[in-house]
């Protein structure tokens, strides 16, 4: 029987270095490998022996797209180890910072990296020639996210203002109002238009019965804390993560694959958060959801572009709420009392749950570190999506099939720099 391969040696419009290799025998898929060859950087190893206070500055460097997520999961894990509880206004300020990163990261992906696929453009710059208003308004929206991270975090990439216990310096009420409010009000309007636009894009008909895993919080759409839940019965405290999840190391990837013990692949990110936490979205977001006809759950990974736009709208809305209610904290940080112990932290990075665990010694030195990024948790699910997707679309011309396979991967906004702490596509017909 004729065998062939689909190969994408270097995946574009993803963060990091990776490729895809699919092997076909006749009309049957025989192998799918999401190849990640991003050079390993060994973050967990060089955290050993460093002082706890250096951790958020070091882990931020894992990813230039979502440094805030690394900083948040780090500081929450260390605060868990020290038994520290944050003052309410400090907690709100962290949530505001996270809104900024969600806006930055989501807009970069849905407008600049993902949308061109739906309309058949090689990139956003080409798309900008035919749809200048889409690209320019997206850049304006993204800028509002950058403005939050710059003010609260100190700068847009690798913020400097996050520390265990809180911040180094907290903004005044006037700063938040003068520098962010107006810009965010405009951004919120752009986000509504963007959500409608993403919902109008031609979308492949494809659904799978995923196990969605996300944080869940009684009062709010999840960012920094909550229990880990799934649509298939998982409901655990973040501290129990190691008992329920495990990592596998495969030869074709410098990123470890995560699975739920005894069950296998699962799905994290915008679709999981949305489906598990729809009720917690604001009335404005729900109104837009209703208008575009989305429904409270979504199992089509291509629709992640719509959910990213909706979450961007949520982040603008939530940021404006936090700014309206903000009272400047009395102190920038809660004092830290160092004690030996182990702490766990999990927060909702734009791409899904990001788990950190640290064991700290008596002098505050790091004795052990584990970091499990969202992309390594989604890797196995991406491979399974491709398996099913290619099987049902063998009649497509090869170049079209290859492009659509890339799109399947980009549905997850994979951040390969994160997961190895990347992608090439190849489809092989034997």
């Amino acid at each position, binding site marked *: 029987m004729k065998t062939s391969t689909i190969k994408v040696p270097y995946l*574009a419009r993803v963060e990091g270095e990776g490729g895809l290799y699919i092997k076909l025998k006749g009309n049957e898929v025989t192998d799918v490998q999401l190849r990640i060859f991003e050079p390993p950087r*060994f973050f967990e190893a060089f955290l050993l022996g460093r002082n706890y206070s250096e951790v958020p500055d070091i882990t931020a460097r*894992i990813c230039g797209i979502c440094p805030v997520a690394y900083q948040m999961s780090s500081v929450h894990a260390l605060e868990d180890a020290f038994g520290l509880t944050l003052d309410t206004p400090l907690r709100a300020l962290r949530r505001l910072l996270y809104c900024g990163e969600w806006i930055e990261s989501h807009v970069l992906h849905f407008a600049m990296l993902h949308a061109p696929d739906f309309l058949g453009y090689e*990139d956003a710059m080409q798309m900008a020639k035919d749809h200048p208003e889409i690209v320019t308004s997206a850049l304006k929206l993204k800028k509002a996210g950058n403005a939050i991270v710059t003010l609260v975090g100190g700068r847009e990439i690798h913020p*400097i203002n996050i520390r265990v216990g809180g911040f180094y*310096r907290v903004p005044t009420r006037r700063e938040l109002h003068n520098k962010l409010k107006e810009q965010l009000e405009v951004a919120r309007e752009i986000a509504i238009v963007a959500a409608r636009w993403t919902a109008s894009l031609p979308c492949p008909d494809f659904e799978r019965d995923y196990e969605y895993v996300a944080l869940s919080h009684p009062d709010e759409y999840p960012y920094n804390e909550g229990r880990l839940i799934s649509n298939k019965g998982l409901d655990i405290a973040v501290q129990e993560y190691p008992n329920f999840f495990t990592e596998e*190391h495969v*030869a074709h990837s410098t990123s470890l694959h995560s699975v739920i013990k005894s069950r296998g692949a699962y799905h994290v990110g915008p679709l999981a958060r949305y489906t598990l936490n729809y009720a917690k979205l604001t009335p404005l977001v729900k109104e837009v959801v209703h208008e575009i006809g989305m429904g409270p759950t979504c199992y089509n990974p291509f629709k992640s572009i719509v959910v990213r736009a909706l979450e961007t709208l949520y982040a603008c809305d939530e940021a404006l709420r936090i700014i309206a209610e903000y009272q400047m904290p009395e102190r920038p940080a809660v004092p830290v009392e160092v004690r030996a112990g182990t702490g766990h932290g999990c927060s909702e990075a734009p791409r899904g749950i990001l788990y950190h665990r640290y064991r700290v010694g008596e002098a505050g030195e790091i004795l052990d570190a584990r970091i499990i990024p969202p992309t390594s948790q989604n890797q196995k699910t991406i491979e399974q999506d491709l398996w099913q997707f290619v099987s049902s679309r063998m009649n497509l011309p090869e170049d079209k099939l290859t492009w659509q396979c890339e799109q399947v991967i980009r549905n997850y906004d994979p*951040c390969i*720099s994160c997961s190895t702490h990347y992608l090439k596509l190849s489809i092989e017909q034997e």
Partner: protein
Amino acid sequence: MAAKRKPKLAVWKFASCDGCQLSLLDCEDELLAVTDAIEIANFPEASRAIIKGPYDLSLVEGSITTSHDAERIHQVRRMSKYLVTIGACATSGGIQALRNFQDVKQFVAYVYPNPDYISTLSKSTPIADHVFVDYELRGCPINKYHLVEVINAFLNGRRPNTPQHSVCVECKWRGTVCVMVAQGIPCMGPVTQAGCGAICPAYQRGCYSCFGPAESPNAASLAHWFQHLGMSETQIMHAFRGINAYAESFRRESEAHEN
């Protein structure tokens, strides 16, 4: 007169976090103006269209950590008229150069269950250790306005104008009271190249040297002041052994405080 051909820009990634190349996409107000003046010929993070080299300007992000990358950087150099390195990884080896002070095999075994699957070099090294570099842009991350300046300078055939003084000068410009003198907070500002705008002291913390050593830094003298402030030898070692650990002057100073 015939229309002038647009210069071709390529962006290359080695071991890094993608943050510096992202800075180009973060130039919201300048991005479309840049793409008007220059043809983005090879930028996989932003586009699946690849136009073949040679390229007029290559921006290189990341450090060399694998034998494959050590070969690839030579190919990039051969295809590039001008090669500019962007960020701490490309200019000093980056945070991943912390491996250079340890046995990398132990690192692999610590992070990966099957160390045999991993191939990596024992050291993370800057691009200039491997090929000729026309200009270096420091920072973790780079300052996006410096990047626009480099592209602008290149388009106009002049040398880029980026700061060479220390962070201390930026604090004075910004009107920030010295955190080390006034509050006794250890600060790497005196030995660190300017470029960020002295953000950390303005946020009530010491500089931790994202931009690496300034020209002829007196690292030993600063380490002496750190001792006065009560820092332990390990703390001083870590202060110099951070994002730009493998930059010559910082490497020597951190080794001087290693037990």
